[in-house]
């Protein structure tokens, strides 16, 4: 008897609280999966015979843009249960659900003479409804790649809620020749490596071009005179002029202000390198740092109120932030190794940088107060990150070691996933990602 009571009491005592019978079942989920979202893009319909090839090419490029982000996975046409051959037909949602497509992109293409018209629609398969409105783009046939990028941008931004980045260009340095006699020239390309065009010849050594915020000009460093000088290049005319800077022996590492009217740069004088700010047209300038150490690689915040730069005033290269008018700088990098080439994200939340530690180079990101430092890559020599217009992807330069070492461009998502090269015929370095084109 006593034992019975004892057992019962023990069981009662050990019983935890019973789930409330009155309210709904409540759960918290903190662990999900990270996997690409499957989508399907049945071939864009060619509304007339001349459009057949363009329609097929457009379809492929839209799919490649989305799959290339690492956030989407294309379901191949061979898996489709029903086709969507007419732009106007209603969507058979169960067929698309059955193959696990979560998004469906359809389009139609018309070509008349030199004119190209592209229509597209995006469907949310699980809700069984269209996502957003249909869109129509018009332009020349030559610009078909840009239209494909615009379609992909629209799909991307509706699904992820972020801005797109496919219809953008990157200015970089194209490299040929052996390591001890490198020929470098400025070049521009679509973000995916297509449509490469040269902006300078290789008669003068050129470095580190930087796009203006609206994509109409490029600032870069040129050794044409034997001394590093900053030039301004107009993209439309490919004309260049030298930037008027403060008096100094060398000027380099320039960047535009957010409205494109001012430039922040490094000026070297009497053995010391400091950061200056000047008007792009008049040349009137202000000195922002005056430490006896090397201060260089400045980058403005998106709201234009702060500057992040690298300095070796502590003995090794580290990152510092100061007001855009100069003044006291506070250090934000504290890990092992050296930090350089800081670039402020267009979203304003992160700073990308190059880190050197124990003989390896890394591209990394950290918050603007220096916390949450994350390294995204590791290799013999990675440097020079640049941000995509939506702040989701970083492009950088990677160089291989040894006599035959060459440079190429790579991109990586800010989560560190989806590291992949940009396919280019020659060596390439110093990328600078321009804005989304209107």
């Amino acid at each position, binding site marked *: 008897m*006593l*034992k*019975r009571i*004892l*057992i019962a009491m*023990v*069981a009662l005592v*050990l*019983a*935890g609280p*019973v*789930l409330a019978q009155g*309210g*709904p*079942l*409540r*759960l*918290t*989920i*903190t*662990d*999900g*999966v*990270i*996997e*690409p979202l*499957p989508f399907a893009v049945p071939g864009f319909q060619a509304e007339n015979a001349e459009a057949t090839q363009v329609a097929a090419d457009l379809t492929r490029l839209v799919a490649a843009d989305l799959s290339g982000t690492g*956030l989407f996975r294309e379901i*191949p046409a061979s*898996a489709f*249960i029903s086709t969507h051959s007419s732009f106007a037909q209603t969507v058979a949602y*169960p067929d698309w*659900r*059955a*193959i*696990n497509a979560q998004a469906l992109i359809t389009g139609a293409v018309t070509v008349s003479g030199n004119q190209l018209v592209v229509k597209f629609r995006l469907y949310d398969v*699980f809700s069984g409804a269209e996502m957003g409105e249909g869109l129509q783009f018009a332009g020349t046939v030559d610009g078909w790649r840009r239209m494909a990028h615009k379609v992909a941008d629209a799909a991307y931004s509706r699904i*992820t*809620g*972020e801005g797109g980045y496919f219809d953008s260009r990157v200015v970089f340095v194209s490299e040929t020749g052996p390591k001890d006699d490198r020929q470098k020239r400025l070049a521009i390309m679509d973000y995916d490596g297509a449509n490469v065009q040269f902006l300078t010849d290789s008669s003068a050594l050129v470095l580190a071009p930087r796009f203006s915020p609206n994509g109409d000009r490029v600032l870069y460093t040129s050794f044409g005179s034997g001394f590093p000088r900053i030039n301004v290049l107009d993209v439309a005319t490919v004309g260049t002029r030298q930037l008027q800077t403060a008096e100094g022996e060398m000027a380099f590492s320039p960047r535009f202000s957010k409205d494109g009217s001012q430039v922040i740069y490094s000026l070297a004088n009497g053995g010391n390198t400091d950061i200056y700010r000047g008007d792009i047209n008049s040349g009137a300038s202000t000195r922002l740092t005056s430490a006896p150490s090397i201060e260089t690689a400045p980058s403005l915040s998106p709201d234009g109120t702060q500057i992040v730069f690298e300095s070796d005033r502590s003995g090794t290269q580290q990152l510092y932030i100061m007001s855009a008018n100069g003044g006291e700088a506070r250090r934000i990098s504290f890990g092992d190794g050296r930090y350089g080439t800081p670039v402020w994200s267009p979203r304003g939340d992160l700073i990308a940088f190059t880190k050197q530690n*124990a003989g*390896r180079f*890394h591209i990394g990101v950290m918050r603007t107060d220096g916390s*949450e430092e*994350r*390294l995204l*890559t*590791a*290799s*013999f020599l990675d440097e020079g990150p640049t941000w995509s217009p939506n702040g989701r992807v970083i492009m950088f330069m*990677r160089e*291989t*070691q040894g006599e035959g070492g060459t440079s190429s461009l790579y991109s*990586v998502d800010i*989560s*560190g*996933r*989806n*590291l*992949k090269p940009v396919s280019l015929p020659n060596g390439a370095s110093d990328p600078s990602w321009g804005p989304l084109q209107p």
Partner: protein
Amino acid sequence: MRTPGTYISAVGHVGLVGWLVLGWGLSSEPLDFEVSEVSVVSGAEFAAIVAATTPQPDVADPTAPVVPQIDDVPVLIEPEPAPQAAPAPEPASEPAQEAPPPEAPEPPAPPSDVVDVAPTVPAPPAIEAAPELNQSPRPQPRPAPRVAPEAVAPPPPDAQVAEIAQDAVVPDAETPAEVVEPVQEATAPEEAATEIVTEADAPSGAVATSARPQSRPDRPAPQTPAQTSTASSDNADDAAVAAALEAALAATAPALPEGPPLTGSETEGFRVAVNRCWNVDPGSEAARVTVTVAFSLDQSGRVDGDVRQVAASGGSDGATSIAFQAARRAILRCGASGYDLPSDKYNQWRDVEITFDPTGMRMR
């Protein structure tokens, strides 16, 4: 030799021995030990007590939900002359919904972003770094295209990607006249890692398939006490009491007299069933938004009505909307064929509120 020293020594020895024998001042009480009261309980009464405190064993393994029956499997449109006839894929069954898109035959390989230069072997730490030994680094999972709470080994080379593992079934060549069995390809769940592995922390080559083990609901205590015959002997009683205590301790949601609440394993199974479909994009703004949604289920476990947003925090309107859509998709996708919850407890899970909090995932 008869010296004074000898005498003193002899007296001392005798005195010591005598003291030890007599034991003055050396006594102590024997140590106390506890005696627990035991009373006799009959075998039937005891079985009743044990059954009431033990959780139900898992109905289904959370990682491999209901194994489908052959005729539910949709036909794969692949090389073999697979008959399209019989199963026009019904979205009804969950496996159909997770139908493997016939991917390129090879499983998604780890990203081919292998560093150009073989990673240099780090110099062995100096001896002074001995304190490091206390914390051996957690083995890094291989970089995989899909990141999920449970690691999944890469599927066998000729397997199509699907949610459930099945063996290949080839129709018997002798039975052309009968209903042709659908060709069932070998399928296996897509390879998954438990965390994002960037190039910067990719392992140098050691393949680590041992990830952090997922905490499992406790198994019920061994049922041996119930098999004990009449509990008349003291030994059996002791074992019975010990086992009952164990069972009560092991139970995650011990029962109250008025009716069984949902057990821990059942809620855990429900949670796992939903989070498998919850796709988070760690680099996005929506990955900072915590959103709570509410919905109702019918008796078969399917979502009844729509999924409503109840609360949200941590982001702009746009980011919140994206987070809500992802949560809603997770519930609808994984619940298309009904969630596996015990029907005799329907009242407890008819209305559900789930909070999706992705903030921990971003830092993995």
